């Protein structure tokens, strides 16, 4: 289980993540929601060991991850928000690099990389440099690289970014399947409809603070609202998006 307690990250004394606490349970998909700039990706970078928190704790199975960061990283699969990959490597070479860095045996790296590329419709392009890949193809390479070493904890930051409908549907099914076999999954997104379908629990973040943390169904019942979008509107008191939309339309029509 992943336990986040009072996690805070400050830049120049301004807290972008402010005493955030939540838990992610094995066998469940926990959604981590919030608008752009709410602190989602900063939290995720701290969870992935890329950023040092200003304060707070991150516990993996009861132990602070910084006590054994390498052991924690060994169990972690991470899909970052932006598909920054080495463009001069081919899809296959990229997975081989990850497999070797994860210290998997060579034959297993080749076998699993080949299989994952085939199942993610990248087999035909396995020898093509990633620089020639579309955004969706890059995203699929990242998903494959996060799964290659059979991680216990999966952190998926906007994993649908750039994916076509078929790939997105496949990913939804895959996430459900991984949860069924007991993986701990944190799913970060700002697309509320998708999160509602994929996740059993949600943590809502607004301006760096948790504004809701519960099961999706219980949240709907508690707040007597039909969906996450309405719940979020209520909790986050977002600006009047309808009015903004009308203003944009007016600007477009200007002569």
């Amino acid at each position, binding site marked *: 289980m992943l336990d986040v307690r009072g996690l805070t990250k400050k830049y120049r004394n301004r807290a972008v993540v402010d005493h955030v606490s939540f838990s992610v349970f094995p066998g469940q998909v926990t959604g981590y929601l919030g608008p752009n700039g709410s602190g989602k990706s900063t939290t995720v970078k701290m969870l992935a060991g890329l950023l040092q928190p200003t304060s707070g704790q991150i516990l993996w199975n009861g132990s602070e991850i910084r006590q054994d960061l390498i052991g924690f*990283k060994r169990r972690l699969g991470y899909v970052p928000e932006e598909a920054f990959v080495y463009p001069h490597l081919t899809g296959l070479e990229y997975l081989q690099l990850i497999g070797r860095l994860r210290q998997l045996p060579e034959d297993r790296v080749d076998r699993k990389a080949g299989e994952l590329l085939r199942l993610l419709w990248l087999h035909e392009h396995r020898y093509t440099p990633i620089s020639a890949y579309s955004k969706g193809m890059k995203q699929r390479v990242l998903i494959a690289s996060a799964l290659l070493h059979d991680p216990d904890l999966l952190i998926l930051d906007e994993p649908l970014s750039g994916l076509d409908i078929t790939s997105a549907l496949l990913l939804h099914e895959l996430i459900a399947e991984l949860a069924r076999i007991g993986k701990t999954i944190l799913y970060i997104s700002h697309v509320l409809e998708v999160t509602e379908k994929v996740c059993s629990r949600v943590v809502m973040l607004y301006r760096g603070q948790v504004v809701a943390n519960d099961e999706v169904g219980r949240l709907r019942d508690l707040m007597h609202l039909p969906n996450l979008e309405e719940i979020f509107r209520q909790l986050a008191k977002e600006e009047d998006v309808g009015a903004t939309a009308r203003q944009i339309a007016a600007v477009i029509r200007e002569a």
Partner: protein
Amino acid sequence: MGAFLLLARHFFGRFFDNDIVAQDSDMRTNAIQALGFVAVPGMFVAFAMLPTGARFDHPFANGWNVIASYYFFVVYSMVVMGFVMVFEWDALFPDRRDYIVITPLPLGERTIFWGKLAALIVFLGLFLIDANIMGLVLGTIVTSGPGGLTMAAKLVVVQAAACLSGGAFVAMTFAALQGLLINCLTARAFRRVSPWAQMASMAILIVALFLTPILAMALRPLFEQHSPLLRWYPPFWFLSLYIDNLPGHPAGTMFHELAGLAPRAVAISATAFAATYFTGYWRHARRVMDGMESSGDPPGRLRAAFDRFANTHLLPHPLERATFHFISNTMLRSARHRLFLATVGGVAIAMTLPTIGWLGLKPGSPLFVFTPAGLLTAPLILTFLCVVGLRAAFNLPAELRANWVFQTAESEGGMRHIRAARKWIVIMGLLPMSIVVLPVEIAFRGWEGVVHLTFAVALGLVLLNALLIWFRKIPFTCSYFPGKMSMGAMALVLVVGFVLFVLAMARLETNWMHHPFKLAAFYSVCAAALAGLRWLEDHEFRIDDVLIYEDEPEPAVRTLELG
């Protein structure tokens, strides 16, 4: 502003938006830095001519001093244009990003073509003028003698004709070379050959640049003895054009004869450029668009066999395999790193050539006369540059934003990455170098050649291990601040290191070569040094094994840290 002008401006800007020269930096800054850097040397040479009392009407006085300076102006113009073309090798035609952005816009293909061509011509013209402006203004004033500004103006025309046509000749030749490759090769073959052509061009230019002082000093014997080299090396044609057209025509028949080659060379390169660029442009456009959809090729049989062998026998640990193959793929495919390697290779060739031979001066003699005695220092020079150059290449980052993958997959045994880097330099640097040099050594020095080569390689291994003791980076994954160590300090370290490694060790080897006990002692000391360095590296890693991904910049304000 019309679409043509907008496109020309866009393509012009893209020439400065170049990953090879500078990553993630402002285009305007890149442009100003590049233009300033190129303009300055001409000024220095012009000022250096001042105390010599150089005069155009007495070109053969003071040991041909003026001609040597004129030679510099000509070569500099040609080499700068060569470098510009090599750095812009992938930008001579619109690239994939251009087509993705511009194709959906309502613009005709011809407008795009003329926009790109106009931008290329303006860009090349800008650098051509920039490389020559100081020499044209100051060089001519300095050498005009009592003729004053009127004579200086005449000299400007003569110098401009020689230097600008020399630069244009090189630029058009490189463009024609790429056009020829595009027209003659299949898309797959072009993809494979093009980077090697770019690297070879870079190496040739570096050699030309480094040999300039030597050739400038040899001008008099070369011309007086009618050396065959004069007909084969283009800078001499354009120098002759310069000297032949000086007011009063002080030059002899040799200059006049060679001067005739220059306009012919320009005409041929212009024709080749026109013929290959126009046809190549459309062929290239089709390929870029097709290439977006096509799949790549599997690695060749040789590469696959080598990888299998290396994985099985040379790289026992997965982390070593990860880093070793990452280095290979980056060195081979990143244009920035390829050009860096070509530069190091060019420097190595340029520094080795003068030690192993002389220019063929007399008519009928070969262009280059090999002298086996020079083999004494050649392997030491090659070893030093191979180790230092490759070690320096590891500092150049490649797609820094992607290094998160190394950070999130971090595990114990960071030292394995460093060992892989060391193995890479040995297997891909020192070993191929030895394979090339060994037959030459054996042919000219017999068994002594083998000892000689192992002497250099043993020293190279000690140097390599010493350079990697405190190296805490996975190659290409750490940010780098080139200005962190002052250029002067770095140059001093390199020069002292080079002198110690090459000259001192060559002398040591000469003294010890025929004393088996001394040689045995030398190899024992090297073995002990390697063992000691290995121990030190292990010890240092036990103290600090953290790999770094972000180099610390120099602080804006340096404190004295007193108390």
